[in-house]
């Protein structure tokens, strides 16, 4: 696919006087590489079930100052108790709406980008990572210094609004130093009428560091979402990830985890709820590069209407990575005859002393369970809701921080009830 549509925008990007010129080299390099590879097509193995022509043929414009809110936007409906919130609106940091938490250094993504002077880890050089590098316009970097326990979760609230077709390329770095811990939440919301968000997240966890990462993708149904999440883990570190997707027209998450140190552990939990003609694709790769590392992928989808979904989970166990455990579970609930799911759990094992499992089920609501509930006096409608929420609860119940969990649970239940009414 050609990326010619993005060429003019790229020139505009380079001419922005408020972006540091020192990054141009990296931007240009990335863009040149992207021009070579092009956007993925369905001929690419990893993209067989996801068509991105809406992006490659799209004419999204970079977000201008004029796309930022002219007055302080009202974010009442996105308030959340018990968290520190940083607001990014159409790619523009909203200082007056943001509260900077204690114990962490918060740099704008661009500053950090500069600090690292290009030594940003483009983990897999996927087209969308390259696109993000070329177009990085906003973002944040959260650095938690050694032996620091950040008690209050940090939330970045990404709001995408407006009628203009714009694209934003936020870049987020989370560095958690040795024996430190953090809960980081990204909350993607908004009512944009045409939007393309291509986000890259780089997480690095030093020895014994812990990160809870909660990602909620609830933006408008006219938003195309690409999320490129790259995680590097040292020994004894723990990465817990929860992703809840119910928004967007197209949503694809590329999650790539490197378990580099012994006893590094990652737990990936995803719940996708799709309706109308939404398409949600979760593409995960976990690399066990060291012995005694542990991973689990627990991915569930609930599909309504003509929506479609993809689960592509790969776990690669490298040669010296003995005594590891790896589990993959994918469960999908089809609530309409026309909904469709493609599930593809894969294990690639090059070590011999490992404990791995994988499984995938796709089906309709269990009629026997439904009857069981009805036979206890619960009407069919309520019984269905109970079961679907129950299905979701297997992911939602594990979310840390009671307040966050409750907020997510409530919002999810409301959405589901609306869909099932």
């Amino acid at each position, binding site marked *: 696919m050609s990326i010619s549509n993005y060429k003019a925008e790229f020139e505009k990007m380079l001419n922005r006087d408020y972006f540091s010129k020192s990054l141009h080299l990296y931007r240009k390099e990335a863009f040149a590489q992207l021009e070579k590879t092009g956007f993925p097509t369905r001929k690419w193995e990893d993209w067989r079930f996801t068509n991105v022509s809406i992006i490659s043929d799209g004419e999204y414009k970079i977000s201008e100052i004029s796309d930022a809110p002219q007055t302080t936007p009202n974010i009442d409906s996105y308030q959340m108790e018990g968290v520190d919130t940083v607001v990014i609106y159409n790619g523009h940091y909203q200082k007056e709406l943001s509260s900077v938490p204690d114990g962490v250094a918060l740099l704008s993504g661009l500053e950090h980008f500069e600090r690292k002077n290009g030594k940003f880890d483009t983990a897999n050089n996927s087209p969308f990572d390259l696109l993000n590098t070329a177009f990085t316009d906003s973002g944040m970097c959260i650095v938690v210094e050694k032996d620091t326990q950040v008690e209050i979760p940090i939330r970045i609230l990404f709001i995408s609004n407006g009628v203009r077709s714009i694209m934003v390329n936020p870049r987020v770095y989370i560095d958690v130093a040795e024996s430190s811990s953090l809960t980081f939440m990204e909350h993607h919301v908004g009512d944009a009428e045409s939007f393309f968000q291509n986000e890259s997240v780089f997480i690095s966890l030093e020895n014994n560091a812990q990160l809870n990462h909660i990602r909620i993708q609830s933006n408008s149904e006219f938003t195309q979402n690409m999320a490129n999440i790259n995680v590097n883990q040292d020994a004894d570190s723990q990465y817990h990830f929860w992703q809840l997707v119910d928004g967007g027209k197209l949503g694809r998450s590329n999650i790539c985890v490197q378990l580099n140190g012994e006893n590094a552990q990652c737990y990936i939990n995803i719940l996708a709820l799709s309706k109308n003609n939404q398409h949600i694709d979760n593409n995960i790769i976990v690399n066990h590069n060291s012995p005694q590392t542990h991973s689990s992928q627990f991915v569930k989808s609930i599909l309504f209407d003509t929506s479609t979904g993809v689960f592509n989970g790969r776990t690669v166990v490298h040669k010296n990575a003995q005594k590891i455990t790896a589990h993959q579970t994918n469960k999908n609930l089809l609530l309409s005859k026309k909904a469709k799911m493609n599930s593809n759990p894969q294990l690639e094992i090059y070590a011999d002393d490992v404990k791995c499992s994988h499984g995938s089920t796709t089906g309709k609501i*269990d*009629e*026997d*369970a439904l*009857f*069981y*509930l*009805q*036979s*206890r*006096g*619960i*009407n*069919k409608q*309520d*019984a269905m809701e*109970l*079961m679907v*929420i*129950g*299905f*979701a*609860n*297997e992911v939602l*119940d594990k979310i840390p921080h009671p307040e966050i969990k409750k907020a997510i649970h409530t919002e999810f239940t409301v959405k589901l009830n609306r869909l099932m009414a």
Partner: protein
Amino acid sequence: MIKIENLYVSVEEKEILKGISLEVKPGELHVIMGRNGSGKSTLANVLAGKDKYKVTNGSIKFNGENLLDMLPENRARAGLFLSFQYPVAIPGVNNMYFLKAAVNAVRKSRGEEEIDAVDFLSMIREKLKMVDLDESFIHRPVNDGFSGGEKKRNEILQMITLEPKLSILDETDSGLDIDALKIVAKGVNDFRSPDRSFILITHYQRILNYMKPDFVHILMNGKIVKSGTMELAKEVEKKGYSWIEEEVAEAA
């Protein structure tokens, strides 16, 4: 309480029940025995309203109402309860939440208010003791990962919580050790009253050592071919079913 007349039922074009008539009066306990595949669970499921089973003939009156016209949930609200032979697990649905939803559904249908959360908890605690289940069970997903015996006790817990008028127990005694059997039997006995009735489906007369049936019926090939008392159950346990089969053949 319930009056079944000339009931014919098919599943996927296959006729399973072939003319069953049975009346259970208030306070009575009826036992149904029969070989595997004779249609016992089919009868139980038809009573509870499973729509996979097609009633092709006959009628069922439940306290004067036409049972076959009622949705499963309305049958439950009217006081009919089935303890399943194979209770299903419902991952993600909390047992307590489920029980409360069930209790409230029944209350609502009677025009009563929803039960207060604290009252509910203390009530459940008491009932848990009666079936000797640990409190942790109500905080787990419904039947998920429960052992066979735990599932059966969970069924009895639901029965004594929902307080039905007619309880149909489909092999609730199967696969239980003697202690669990006693608990189940006690659950039923404590619960018996002149206005409550039971249909007990079983393969073994063992449970009848703990409770006194009014009638014992033998189901064979979709028909009740013989009815009697406790003695009949003992005879079946001793001699099996072939002698009844022969009797039936002779009569034909």
